[in-house]
């Protein structure tokens, strides 16, 4: 190390030490107030509540919207879709943190097959392809061949609860991802079980991130994100933000 480097290092060390005395505790106190002041003893309960009751207000709002819509219009065959559009704005702007930087993005309302759920999709980058088996959100333009798959698939299984289904999905994913992480219960971006697998450490190593969540009845939704390691902070983060807007509306 040159003399200049040593001096520069020394001067920064001395000056920043003088100027920041006591800040570490002050900042932590601020963080406690901001992040944990209303925290209950069992934080898990607080977080779980956040999404657990999501379905009920939506059902109430949906019902209210439909009643209003029916009373205003004589067309009794009005589509259920109209009800959904009454509740959710068709387009909104969200702020998402991509690679550590805040980015304002317009997202558009999309309904899943049979309008059983909604999700806001960043349609400047992705499109939603619907089918009877599953809906898939993927890049508008297909990626060049050298890149692994980038998709987020949303599939409903109507007759298996998440707690049962997750074991089956774990076995299936372990075939391609032998080092699949142990199943975790999560509350964000959706409430359910998370399965995370990574296939290597190269830039193009495949990543799978699957959520198994309740469909509000006796079944489940499996939401599977596929991307690659280098795209974790890009596509991975964008999928995360899109998934935060996922709501079951039936």
């Amino acid at each position, binding site marked *: 190390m040159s003399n*200049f*480097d040593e*001096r*520069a*290092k*020394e*001067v*920064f*060390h*001395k*000056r*920043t*030490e*003088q*100027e*920041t005395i006591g*800040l*570490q505790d*002050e*900042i*932590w106190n*601020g*963080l406690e107030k*901001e*992040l*944990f002041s209303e*925290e209950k003893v069992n*934080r*898990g309960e607080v*977080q779980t509540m956040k999404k657990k009751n999501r379905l009920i207000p939506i059902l109430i709002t949906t019902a209210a919207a439909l009643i209003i819509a029916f009373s205003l219009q004589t067309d009794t065959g009005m589509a259920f879709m109209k009800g959904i559009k009454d509740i959710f704005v068709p387009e909104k702007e969200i702020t998402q*943190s991509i*690679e*550590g*930087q*805040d980015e304002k993005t317009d997202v558009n309302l999309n309904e899943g097959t049979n309008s059983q759920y909604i999700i806001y999709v960043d349609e400047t980058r992705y499109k939603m392809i619907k089918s009877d088996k599953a809906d898939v959100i993927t890049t508008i333009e297909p990626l060049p061949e050298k890149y692994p798959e980038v998709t987020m698939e949303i599939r409903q299984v109507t007759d298996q609860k998440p707690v049962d289904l997750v074991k089956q999905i774990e076995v299936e994913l372990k075939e391609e991802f032998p080092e699949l992480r142990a199943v*975790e*219960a*999560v*509350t*964000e*971006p959706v409430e359910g079980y998370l399965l995370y697998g*990574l296939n290597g*450490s190269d830039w193009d190593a495949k*990543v799978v991130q699957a959520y198994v969540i309740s469909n509000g009845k006796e079944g489940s939704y499996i939401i599977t994100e596929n991307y690659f*390691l280098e795209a*974790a*902070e890009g596509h*991975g*983060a964008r999928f*995360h*933000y899109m998934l935060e807007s996922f709501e079951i509306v039936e």
Partner: protein
Amino acid sequence: MEMKELIRNIQAGDKNSFRELYEAYADYAIRTASAITRNREMAKDAVQETFIRVYRQIGSYNPELPFEPWFYRILMNECLRYLKKESALSKFEHPDLENDPSLAEESFDHLSDLYDTIQSLDDMHRIPIILKYVRGFTEKEIAEILGLNHNTVKSRLFKGRKRLKEQLDPIDKEEGPQ
């Protein structure tokens, strides 16, 4: 605790793990923010906001990737946001180093001159230098944190150091062997 495990615990909402992460990263984050913002209060706000963002956005972080570049990108954005906010209030106003009471009390020794000279550089050259000497980041890491090309960082560091040497040279000569 291993970093990946720590992150996973925070993702699951564990406060003690978050505290552990804070203890590990706060010191250098505060020093860096203080050097960049040149203002104690601003540094405090920028670091606090950074950790709030880390806590709330940890779900979007991939524990398989190094944590520090992700963390410092957030910190840089916060510091720059506060600097921008301040410059909007007092446009074109630079910190008055000569009348800064904390500096007036000090003897203007060689190291202080070096510090003040670094701080008088434009942000383009000043910030990479701070990242290099406060936390000891490599050029590659600085490029990653600032979202710049590796060669751009190399060139900015080179030019910044060259300017510093030019400005400090007369001092060196004055204080050199008599």
